[in-house]
């Protein structure tokens, strides 16, 4: 199985706890003989790399000046698409799945799904409603609309707690049968992840 992981943070760039989590995920997937490419952002350390079996592609934003994180994210997505497409064509179009972590690279996942017919899983670390509680400025609304798009277009949604499952259903009307709860603390964590991947790819 060939999987692309999209995350806006990945070591050595650590913003919150997502970077470490995604690194552990990629490491475990490699150990389970899953071919993984992590596509992520780095300001200057760009390009293709490989470290203990995990291939990374780091892209930077061609647009240097921004009015905020929203425009920065929205223009970074095309570089993510370019990096993902490069892997896709190098692998003779055999990419089975994209696992996109949080909202940042959902637009790229949606385009790749539409263009190349690669399904994606939206893995929720956090949601805008909780990050910016009660904030409903157009800025927050835009991020929420991207989260909604991710929930709508994803083949499956994974969350890390039962509480988050309820929240995803409450905030975005995501159908509960589409949401899998996979706790990183559980001993069967990676088995559950693999199980979820197989649910989407149909055993590829």
């Amino acid at each position: 199985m060939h999987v692309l992981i999209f995350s806006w943070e990945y070591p050595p760039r650590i913003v919150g706890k997502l970077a470490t989590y995604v690194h552990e995920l990629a490491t475990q997937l490699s150990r389970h003989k899953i071919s993984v490419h992590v596509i992520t952002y780095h300001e200057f350390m760009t390009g293709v790399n490989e470290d203990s079996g995990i291939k990374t592609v780091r892209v930077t934003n061609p647009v240097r000046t921004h009015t905020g994180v929203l425009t920065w994210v929205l223009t970074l997505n095309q570089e993510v698409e370019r990096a993902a497409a490069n892997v896709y064509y190098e692998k003779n179009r055999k990419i089975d799945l994209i696992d996109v972590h949080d909202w940042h690279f959902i637009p790229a996942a949606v385009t790749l799904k539409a263009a190349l017919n690669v399904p994606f899983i939206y893995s929720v670390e956090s949601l805008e409603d909780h990050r910016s509680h009660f904030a409903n400025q157009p800025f927050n609304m835009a991020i929420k609309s991207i989260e909604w798009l991710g929930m709508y277009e994803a083949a499956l949604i994974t969350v890390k707690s039962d509480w988050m499952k309820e929240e995803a259903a409450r905030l975005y009307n995501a159908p509960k049968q589409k949401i899998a709860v996979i706790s990183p603390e559980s001993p069967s964590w990676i088995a559950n992840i693999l199980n979820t991947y197989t649910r989407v790819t149909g055993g590829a």
Partner: protein
Amino acid sequence: MRAPRIMMLTWEFPPRVIGGISPHVYFLSKSLSKNGAEVYVVTCDFPGAPSHEIVDGVKVYRIDSYKNPSPDFASWVYLMNINMQKEAAHLANELGGIDVFHAHDWLVATAGIGLKHVFRKPLIVTMHSTEIGRRDGLHTATEHMIHETEAWLTYEAWKVICCSNYMTSHVRWAFGLPNDKLVMVPNGVNTEMYDKINQSGLSEFRRKYALPEEKIVLFVGRLVYEKGVHVLVNAIPRIIDKVNAKFVIVGNGYMKDQLLSIVKSMGLEHKVLFAGFLDEADLVKLQKCADVSVVPSLFEPFGIVALEAMAAQSPVVVSDTGGLSEIVDHDLTGVKVYPNNPDSLAWGITRVLLDSNYSTSLRINAYKKVREKYNWDRIAVETMKVYEEVIAQYSKSFWA
């Protein structure tokens, strides 16, 4: 070889008309499909317009243009592009592939760039304008951001089309592009639309805008700084000293309130009519009625409005800048005046209004030039050559 399959990306297409890109893409697409291309237009939706229709052989698809509140215009553009690239990707697959993506301006930059890479097909860009030109420099973070988006778009493009020699060299300078990436294909104008107007009904129509004894001086454009409408307002007293005229200003923009108050403070309210945005049928008639059409722009990549006036056989007075300098030959097809100079502008307008032999010869020459040089069939043939050249180069690349 089968007909090249072109997907046009544009944020405006009739009936959605905001600026010059909309009519440009409409006439270009229509003439291209007449001249052997298969053209699909992907554009923003518009109230009342169907999400899919065939217009003069062109297949038009209107996407959900993102209607949630956006923090600002640029953010809306990028958000709209998410939907555009998603829907365009679905469409490209349904059609069994696209040969060339053709994007118009930075407003569809991210969609165009994304589609290029996911499908690995060539991207061609028409740069209708630039941020650095519109704003006369880059002053804010937003302006820098848009400029850098434009730079990225031209970097990703296989070829960059500009509508005038002026714009070609401006774009080369603004983004540091190599010469062989730039192609000049002029903009066109549809003369038939003006020719079919019945002259006899016009005097009745004219009365809505001016008294019979008043000459009509017409300005058509967005009321924004770079269009120089404030220069025209400043020229008015110098003109009405010599000739009885009514100044009809068509269009809207952020300078409208300011212009209204200047006109009021000058005591010229009875001589200036702000007509707002007009639909095409009324605009065409008004252009036919105009005794002179004025294009006082400070920055003008092309100057389609001057061509329209010439097609309507209205004499033109333009500022000698940008694309306008190339369209108009002074004393032959129009009058050129110094940009940002109300004295010079007043001189040009007065000259046309007071000398009817002179203005008649301008009308005749200008109409002839427009029919010969700025005709859409000719432009479609030139654009087809660009597509064919790019497709031929692409077919030898490792992406093919």
